[in-house]
């Protein structure tokens, strides 16, 4: 029996699998394989990776899949022609957006262009109010005309978003049903099946994007499924969602925008799972890739999600909102490929521009002439020049030297000072991002463990931890294919979110209790359609609370069951506490519940991980060589170079040291101590020995 996860990334398609012992149900072996990503027929890359791994898919009992297909078809504008039907008076909502302009001094600012042009944005009369009461009947007299126009413009997919449908989705449902009956050739997405949150522009844009990618996503998942069947796959395949869970192909095909961030999410989930395995509950997850670094905070084992997610938003563009539950990730343009540059005033910057995969960093010798963070790490010999990319590439040291020299002349620094400077600035950018998710929200980094992965995780994590006073760093085994690993550890998860205003007082208790109950019933019937029994489902309730009159809210974890006065007071106390933690004060003002959030998780049976075997090898036998490594202010030190693959449980060694395998480099600073755990994860204590 095997369990397989595949992750289609921008450049590579990763595959990770467990072989499971039939008797003990324990994972015998974790292995991985990599293949090139193959656009536009992404499924081919998946099967190439399967072939390369040598596994037989007919033995798989579990297949989880993460993909960038959705986000790619959005960023490359390769979705289907989409039409919009909205409430009379609001067809311009998509174009007006919110009127914001982050590029302050640019009077020629251009708003992001809507995904549906004005001539495909249509209106129907009919009104709900904010309480969900119908105040004007839905009128469909013009529907025929609308559909005719859609057909003449080759529309394939229709987005339906009506005002106040979060409070009452009836009109949307009637409209969708009518189109489905009469014109089954269209794909349809209604806003209310995606989200029940208010703000019409955000909801309309989310619905538009979902309809835009739906035909492609359906086609893709269908093809993948047919191929899997060809290889005699017998289990149920799943797709990684942006909310940190997996879901079935069937469910994903209905609203495929939910997998928009499936890759980054599974890495965060992996960090949470590692934590569970070794008993660490408060974690800062950090994923340093080629162009960006992403971080997320895990508190008490729970991955945080929110629905305020935007794509293509930056300091010069307002971007597009996606109002769906997405793991709360802060992303910055700093990765291994980020370019170091000097401005007209002799100031050094790193990123957000990246050298990408081609030409890549200077050291790749593929014609790149912009020094990147990777080059600086190589110049300081933190990366092994003679084992570059696992020995697959001959590092072009000469070019690195030449281009660092150019930068250093502009800066009037020495070459080594320049290389150190690049690393320090890159680290500072990442430190600021880490502060945003921790200190800024009232969390003390000293209470957390930094779990770092991705190509650059091990290279930077230890200095970041020192900067933020994080006492412990964990570099997980398989850190380079960590996202795929995270998928293997995930459960079926669906988030149900509903905007519904309730005062947090005794009079509202009935309404609050009833709403949660209704949501749970809905979740159960939702899972039932896919033959998932209600006994397998676990609920987690959250409520967004705020002081009456405020807009932003704090999401509070609620107990299950029916609430009474006593319970209500407990909830209020925990709200005030959480509010004060985040914002330094609390008020005695009345409190309002603005949003219900129900998480329904259907647990999937997962194998227990096997520990790494001990051969009784001595720690010094894992040392493959020694080299001089530059540790910035601590200077150049002769360091032990450890082979990651030879490390065994309970081995302990001190920095200065480097741990390497073919895809990972871990920097252990002088004074830091590294311990190998039972699963061969590295634990690095950053508190200096006295």
């Amino acid at each position: 029996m095997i369990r397989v996860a595949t992750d289609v990334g921008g450049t590579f398609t990763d595959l990770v699998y467990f072989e499971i012992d039939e008797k003990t149900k324990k994972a015998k072996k974790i292995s991985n394989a990599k293949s090139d990503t193959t656009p536009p027929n992404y499924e081919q890359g998946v099967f190439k990776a399967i072939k390369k791994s040598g596994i037989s898919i007919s033995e798989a009992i579990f297949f989880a899949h993460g993909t960038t297909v959705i986000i790619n078809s959005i960023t490359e504008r390769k979705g289907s022609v989409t039409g919009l039907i909205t409430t009379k008076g609001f067809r311009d909502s998509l174009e007006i957006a919110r009127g914001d302009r982050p590029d302050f001094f640019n009077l020629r600012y251009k708003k992001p262009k809507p995904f549906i042009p004005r001539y495909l944005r249509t209106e129907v009369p009919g009104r709900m109010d904010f309480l969900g009461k119908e105040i004007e009947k839905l009128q469909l007299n013009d529907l025929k005309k609308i559909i005719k126009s859609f057909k003449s413009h080759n529309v394939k997919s229709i987005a339906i978003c009506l005002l106040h449908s979060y409070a009452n989705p009836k009109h949307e449902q009637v409209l969708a049903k009518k189109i489905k009956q009469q014109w089954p050739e269209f794909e349809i997405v209604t806003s209310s099946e995606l989200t029940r949150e208010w703000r019409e522009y955000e909801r309309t844009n989310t619905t538009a994007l979902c309809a835009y990618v739906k035909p492609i996503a359906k086609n893709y998942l269908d093809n993948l499924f047919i191929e899997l069947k060809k290889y005699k796959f017998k289990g149920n395949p799943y797709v990684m969602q942006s909310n940190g869970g997996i879901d079935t192909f069937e469910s994903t095909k209905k609203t495929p925008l939910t997998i928009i961030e499936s890759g980054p999410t599974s890495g965060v989930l992996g960090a949470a799972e590692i934590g569970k395995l070794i008993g660490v509950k408060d974690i800062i997850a950090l994923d340093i890739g080629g162009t960006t670094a992403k971080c997320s905070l895990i508190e008490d084992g729970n991955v945080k999600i929110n629905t305020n997610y935007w794509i293509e938003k930056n300091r010069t563009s307002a971007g597009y909102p996606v109002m769906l539950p997405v793991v709360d990730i802060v992303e910055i343009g700093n990765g291994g490929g980020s370019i170091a540059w000097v401005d007209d005033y002799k100031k050094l910057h790193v990123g957000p521009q990246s050298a990408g995969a081609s030409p890549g960093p200077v050291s790749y010798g593929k014609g790149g002439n912009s020094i990147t963070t990777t080059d600086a790490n190589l110049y300081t010999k933190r990366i092994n020049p003679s084992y570059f990319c696992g020995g697959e590439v001959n590092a072009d040291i000469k070019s690195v030297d030449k281009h660092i020299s150019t930068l250093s002349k502009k800066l009037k620094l020495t070459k080594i000072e320049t290389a150190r400077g690049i690393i320090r600035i890159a680290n500072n950018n990442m430190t600021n991002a880490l502060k945003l998710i921790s200190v800024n929200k009232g969390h003390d980094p000293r209470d957390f463990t930094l779990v770092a992965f991705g190509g650059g995780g091990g290279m930077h994590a230890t200095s970041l931890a020192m900067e933020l006073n994080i006492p412990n760093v964990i570099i997980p085994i398989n850190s380079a294919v960590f996202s795929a690993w995270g998928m293997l550890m995930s459960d079926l998860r669906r988030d149900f979110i509903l905007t519904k205003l309730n005062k947090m007082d005794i009079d509202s208790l009935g309404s609050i209790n009833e709403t949660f109950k209704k949501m749970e019933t809905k979740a159960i019937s939702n899972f039932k359609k896919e033959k998932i029994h209600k006994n397998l489902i676990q609920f987690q309730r959250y409520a967004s609370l705020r002081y009456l009159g405020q807009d932003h809210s704090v999401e509070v974890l609620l107990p299950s069951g029916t609430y009474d006065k006593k319970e209500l007071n407990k909830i209020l106390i925990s709200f005030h506490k959480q509010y004060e933690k985040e914002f330094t004060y609390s008020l005695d003002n009345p409190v309002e519940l603005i949003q219900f959030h129900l998480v329904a998780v259907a647990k999937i049976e997962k194998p227990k991980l096997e520990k790494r075997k001990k051969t009784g090898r001595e720690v010094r036998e894992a040392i493959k060589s020694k080299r001089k490594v530059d540790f910035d202010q601590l200077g150049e030190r002769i360091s032990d170079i450890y082979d990651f693959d030879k490390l065994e449980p309970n081995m302990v060694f001190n920095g200065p040291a480097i741990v390497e395998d073919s895809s990972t480099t871990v920097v252990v600073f002088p004074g830091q101590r590294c311990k190998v755990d039972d699963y061969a994860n590295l634990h690095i204590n950053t508190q200096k020995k006295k």
Partner: protein
Amino acid sequence: MAKKIDPITVEIIQSSLQAACDEMFIAMRKTAMSSIIYEVLDFGTAVTDSNGNIAASGAGIPAFIAMCDKAVQAVLKKFDDKDINPGDIFATNDPYNGGVTHLNDVIVVMPVFSGKKRIAWTANIAHWPDLGGMAPGGISADATEIFQEGLQLPVIKLFNQGKPIQSVIDIIISNSRVPQYTKGDMWAAIASIRVGEKRIKDISEKYGRDTFEKSVDLFMEYGENSSLDSLKKLKNGTYYGEDYLDNGKKIQVKVTITNKEFIVDLRNNPVQDTGPNNASYDGTVVSAQMAFKGVTSSDFICNAGTFRPLKVICDEGSMFNPIRPAAQGIYYETDIRSYDLIWKTISHLNPDKSTAGSFASICGTFMGGTHPDTNEPFIIIEPQIGGWGASAAGDGMSANFSAFHGDTFNTPAEIHEARHGLYVNQMRLNNQEGGEGKFNGGKGIIMDYRVRSKNAWVSVAYTRSKTLPWSLNKGREGSANYIEVIRKNKKIEKYSVVTGLGLEPGDIVRIYTGNGGGFGDPKKRNKEMIKSDLLNQYITKEQAKKYYGYKK
């Protein structure tokens, strides 16, 4: 002589300053009570050096970038060093005394100490929705003295060494028509400057006080050098410009540009208004700063150094520099017109940035009444979005907030209806004529508020209702900003300035914001673009024929 600081440390300190301002900004946005703060982002945060020179800022509104420094300087003028201690918090809203704008904008500032030495200040300016005054929301077109516009906080102490001065706070709260909001907004502002104080202290302690202070100085030098370099690219000379206010009065400016200076001479302008259409000298300086920044460099570096080459001259007693106790409630329409005038006069100097005129009004809209479902009072205070000017590079942008706004968000119809108990019947692009050109001005909006409550009222004070957005190179002028009140009996009233106009259930307040000015002869517009305009119903067939000479 201190030892030389390495440039990498300097860079890290400078970017940490920016990060601290951003963090202060986020803290305020998340905790504020009033939608004008958290949604419209009518607020800003800043860090200054120990003498009140702006070092870095975070703002939702470009107009708020360089404001907080004046308040810090006012504190330093009024208080002796021995009365400025760790944990103190000061506040001002007095436009004649560091408050810059109008009484609703309250600035709170806090000194940052490292050891016993003051090394910086953190500051926050935000629009508090009501601090008393003759009209709800404080702003009335009928005000003739600042005393009618609310409670004045003439550079006062709010906290003494970490302890709130409760009696002062009580006075402020009890002077507000919406005390809960005021209390919440005040605490949000305090939370925000405290976050900043802690962060700045950490930075200074980590790198050392001298290194910190030196880095701040260097940052300002950097800002100054960047401005001087941009100035060198503009053609030296003296440029004259004029425009007309909706009341027919002429406004004028002379801008003199040399390699080292950018002098804005606003003398010989109308004497101060007997009403609230005045802007303080500090406010006028902010207008000039924005125009200066717009024509020089559009990067995000904005500190005291950036504006060192700028000088602003105004007559005392004029609408751009009034004498106490002139009212200033509607300062923003005065500021945006002086800004617009300067922009019109100099934007051609930088062909990569120049544009035709925009709707150039905040279109501040105030409504109030009793929510028909909850029976609670509500106040709407909101700016409107409108059309921007076209340029040689293409059509202007539709439906965006004015140049004074930045990362400002409009209020969704769904939230309006729930929170304010009215219906938003429509929110669409303005299909009126105006702004046609080879490149069209961006479109304004048409938005309807249908009233539900019995005792509702509306106040507006829009500018550019008569003098329309200017065009360039034979394009057509843009269109007007105004409102219509469509009574239940279908009678239509039209206003651009009105205070406390009574409304009945069923009445509709229809807001029109202007299209921006066009660029180039409309007859020269590309045929494919006209076809697309027709397909998208941005223009009618008749308009296509009439203005663009388009025949199918």
